């Protein structure tokens, strides 16, 4: 078994009287591609929000394994968690709409460059050097994902499928160790979904990162992931390889309503 990257132990989230996530334990390993599936309202996005700090957990422990040892992510702000190496995309695309594609990517690199406040307002050569480095890095990333031609466009002008792709590129620009993709294929046609499948494989191969994918499109999930978690009513229903999950009676019951 490969070494773990992120573990969540018995995490619980209550919204008032409603338990959205109940006693879920998951582990994501280095360089793994994991799927997270479940019916609507199963708590998938809530789990993402808990792991990325958008909503605090009611109880349970989230730990990140780094070169410096184990780091607890409990009670950390989303920005700190992002800086620790967890990045994400959103179910309902959240790009910086009025800003250019290039700026969207450069913003994600904010924490990797420090030219200093005085350098930036007085434009000493160091500022131009940092800016040039940053732009070059962003352009390289855009080139890999075929977005060079739209680099100067405002993000809101892009077609839907390209916006999804840009969101993934933006998340990668933060240099994550772990990337959460929240329904990347939502609203895409079969052709776009096929492109996305290739893209996800390419990202995992070229960037050597762990990817966790929430998805309803079974063709996409079963094609790319190595391991799956199934959630239902906020609890973990099953875990296994795509093949195991496809033949798991409990999962079939949850999805098809007990016919099988």
């Amino acid at each position, binding site marked *: 078994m490969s070494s773990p990257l992120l573990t969540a132990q018995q995490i619980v989230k209550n919204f008032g009287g409603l338990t959205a996530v109940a006693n879920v334990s998951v582990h994501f390993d280095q360089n793994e591609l994991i799927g997270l599936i479940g019916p609507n309202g199963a708590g998938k996005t809530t789990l993402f929000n808990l792991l990325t700090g*958008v909503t605090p957990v009611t109880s349970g422990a989230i730990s990140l394994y780094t070169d410096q040892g184990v780091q607890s992510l409990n009670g950390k702000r989303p920005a700190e968690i992002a800086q620790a190496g967890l990045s994400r995309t959103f179910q309902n695309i959240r790009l910086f709409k009025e800003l250019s594609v290039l700026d969207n990517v450069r913003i994600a690199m904010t924490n990797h460059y420090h030219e200093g406040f005085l350098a930036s307002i007085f434009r000493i050569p160091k500022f131009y050097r940092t800016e040039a480095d940053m732009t070059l890095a962003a352009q390289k990333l855009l080139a890999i994902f075929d977005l060079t031609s739209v680099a100067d466009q405002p993000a809101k002008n892009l077609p839907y499928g390209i916006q999804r792709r840009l969101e993934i590129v933006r998340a990668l620009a933060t240099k994550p160790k772990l990337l959460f993709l929240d329904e990347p294929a939502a609203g895409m046609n079969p052709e776009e979904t096929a492109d996305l499948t290739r893209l996800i494989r390419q990202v995992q191969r070229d960037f050597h990162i762990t990817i966790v994918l929430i998805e309803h499109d079974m063709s996409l999930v079963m094609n790319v992931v190595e391991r799956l978690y199934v959630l239902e009513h906020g609890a973990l229903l099953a875990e296994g390889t795509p093949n195991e999950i496809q033949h798991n009676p409990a999962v079939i019951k949850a999805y098809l309503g007990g016919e099988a």
Partner: protein
Amino acid sequence: MRANFKYNFSWLAVMVIGFVAIDACEFLGIINAFIENMLVTIGINIILATGLNLIIGFSGQFSLGHAGFMAIGAYATGIMTQTIATPLGFYLSMVVGIVIAMIAALIVGIPTLRLRGDYLAIATMGAAEIIRILINNLKITNGAAGLFNIPPLVTWATVYVLMCLTTIVTVNFIHSRNGRAIMSVREDEIAAEAMGINPTRWKLAAFVFGAGTAAIGGSLHAAYIQTIAPGDFNIMASIAILIIVVLGGVGSITGTFVAAIVLGALDTILQNFGTLRMIIYSLALILIMIFKPSGLLGNWELSFKHLGTHQRKEQSIHE
């Protein structure tokens, strides 16, 4: 690097030409004391409105307390230059004003920048009122009577140079890693946070920066007008700066310049109309807002870089 040099040089040329033009008019007697007063007011308003545009247009925080920070700068200069009545004393007082205004902005900003929209507007308005009432009741500020006989240490040239400097610094701040982080918080706070950007920190940076420039405007105001009173920095003063920002276009520094000049000129011309002045002025505002709701220039910016690339594209087509 050479492109940057050319670009910066074009802006420098514009500023020098502007200076020489005003200087020549002054020499030829075209500009009398009345018009000079108008030009200085426009210059100070540009400094104030540029800082407010950074807060409202670029960081997306609606502040109604800009006059409070202006008051801090004005009183720092008013008090200090009475003991050190030299140009050096003026610049020293300006720096002190900037520092105090920035500290005040930090104290105000940390609790209030969590609020959004209308709530933040009311909170910042309250903060400016607190500053005004403090000034009104302190001995060192001479209470409600205010300060007079402040040494005239500022000429139109000082205002012009400081206007250029604050604009350069503000625009440089916006067009940098810092400015992009600030705009990302305006665009989508949740997404910005997920990219590792601490929203409170960057909103605070814009707010404190804006407060610092407001203090510069206040210092110049005190040293040029020579009399200041707490009443000069009430809510109406904040709104007057806000009008310039909204009229010029929220998120356009070029628009702020245009609006400050248009309103300054309008204000001067309308002085011949007596009581009708405020009615015509208000009517002009209403008409502009009806026909151009995004402000005179929207978020358009004058840029030599874009002009340059445009020409180059055209050239390559012709070749």
